[in-house]
């Protein structure tokens, strides 16, 4: 039985620890810090071997893993006291944002999805058939089908898939299996022209996009943490979005924001098998994505859909224009153009 008086810390102790923590932050977590294993600091209670609490205040140094003193060179050893406060080293493992990798029904945009032969990407949006005469959005009438929207390289394995192939939620990398986690079937994808089959200068790629049919009751259009798209940007006004802040929810990096840096961009993109494709009419943003976020819908702060995220680097992210995606697949992500 733990003594209750030894697991609670008096208020004045917390203040003392915070003072030491503020003074120690540069030494422990600063850019020139000598402690590569440290991931954070916290105010807490000193624990003895076996983790029994002592009731004494301590500045907790959070490390990925605890390493024996004998294996550490001296400058990497955390001092037993920092700015008058004793320390305690606590192993916490590697800290990640919790990714959206689980199975959910109804599924929501932001969560993991994938064709059976790919790893996993992100559900961008739940969309519906556009009426033939409805090129600028507007009233959807009675859509024949409802779909999951993501990238060709996520739902159609970069042109390698066949129409009707099972689509898994979560994607195979996240444990999704056919038929248990099959949420729909590949309905349509826009083939990507690759070099060297097509010379770069002759390629006309606008989108990396595909849709899968799904049962209406299994798909919720509310993007996790964002809500549903209130409209979509048209190409004629996309220049007005340069410099604007945008947001997305993705399987790996969760909710992130970025800034639009350039539009009407032509850019060469490397695909998973190393092939290169040249895309036109793309939108460049500051870095807002990681591996697994492919397929995320990118929206303005007022929830206007701007683009479909499909590529990036550690420095930038790249989006297809959402209007080009809608035109190519003959679908709508929202009822209103802006």
């Amino acid at each position, binding site marked *: 039985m733990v003594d209750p008086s030894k697991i609670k810390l008096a208020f004045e102790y917390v203040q003392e620890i915070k003072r030491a923590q503020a003074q120690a932050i540069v030494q422990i977590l600063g850019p020139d810090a000598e402690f590569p294993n440290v991931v954070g600091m916290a105010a807490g209670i000193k624990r003895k071997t076996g983790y029994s609490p002592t009731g004494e205040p301590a500045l907790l140094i959070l490390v990925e893993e605890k390493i024996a003193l004998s294996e550490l060179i001296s400058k990497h050893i955390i001092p037993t006291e920092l700015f008058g406060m004793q320390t305690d080293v606590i192993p916490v493992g590697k800290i990640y944002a919790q990714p959206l990798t689980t199975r959910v029904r109804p599924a929501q945009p932001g969560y993991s999805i994938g064709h059976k032969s790919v790893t996993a990407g992100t559900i961008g949006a739940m969309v519906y058939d556009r009426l033939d005469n409805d090129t600028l959005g507007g009233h959807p009438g009675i859509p024949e089908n409802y779909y999951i929207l993501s990238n060709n390289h996520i739902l159609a394995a970069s042109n390698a898939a066949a129409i009707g192939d099972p689509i898994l939620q979560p994607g195979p990398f996240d444990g999704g299996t056919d038929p248990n986690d099959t949420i729909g079937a590949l309905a349509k994808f826009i083939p990507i022209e690759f070099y060297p089959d097509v010379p770069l*200068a002759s390629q006309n790629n606008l989108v990396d996009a595909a849709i899968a049919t799904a049962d209406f009751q299994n798909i919720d259009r509310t993007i996790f943490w964002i809500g549903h798209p209130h409209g979509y940007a048209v190409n004629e006004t996309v*220049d*007005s979005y340069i410099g604007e802040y945008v947001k997305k929810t993705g399987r790996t990096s969760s909710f992130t924001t970025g800034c639009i840096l350039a*539009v*009407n*961009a032509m850019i060469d993109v490397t695909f998973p098998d190393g092939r290169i494709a040249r895309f036109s009419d793309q939108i460049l943003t500051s870095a807002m994505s990681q591996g697994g976020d492919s397929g995320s819908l990118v929206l303005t702060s007022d929830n206007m859909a701007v683009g479909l995220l499909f590529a990036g680097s550690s420095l930038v992210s790249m989006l297809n224009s959402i209007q080009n995606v809608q035109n190519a697949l003959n679908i709508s992500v929202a009822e209103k153009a802006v």
Partner: protein
Amino acid sequence: MNRNSLSDAELTKASTAQQNHLDTLMNIPQVIGVGIGKKDGHATVVVMTSQQPPDGVIPTILDDVEVVIQIVGDIKTLPTVGVKKDG
């Protein structure tokens, strides 16, 4: 919605400069993309490079439009990568 739109004249000038020089720019080894950006209320031609290009390789002005170099790294698609932890 009141967004900071560039004037049609500005955009046309930058788009024309982009189109006129697109092939030349895309053939420069470090260049992987060319787009339209905005700086101080003016449209610019944004030249995206995988790394810092050597001085003088990319022009600073094209047809009276400012060129902005944006280092973007290597652009790849973003499926999940890595090894699954639990098999």
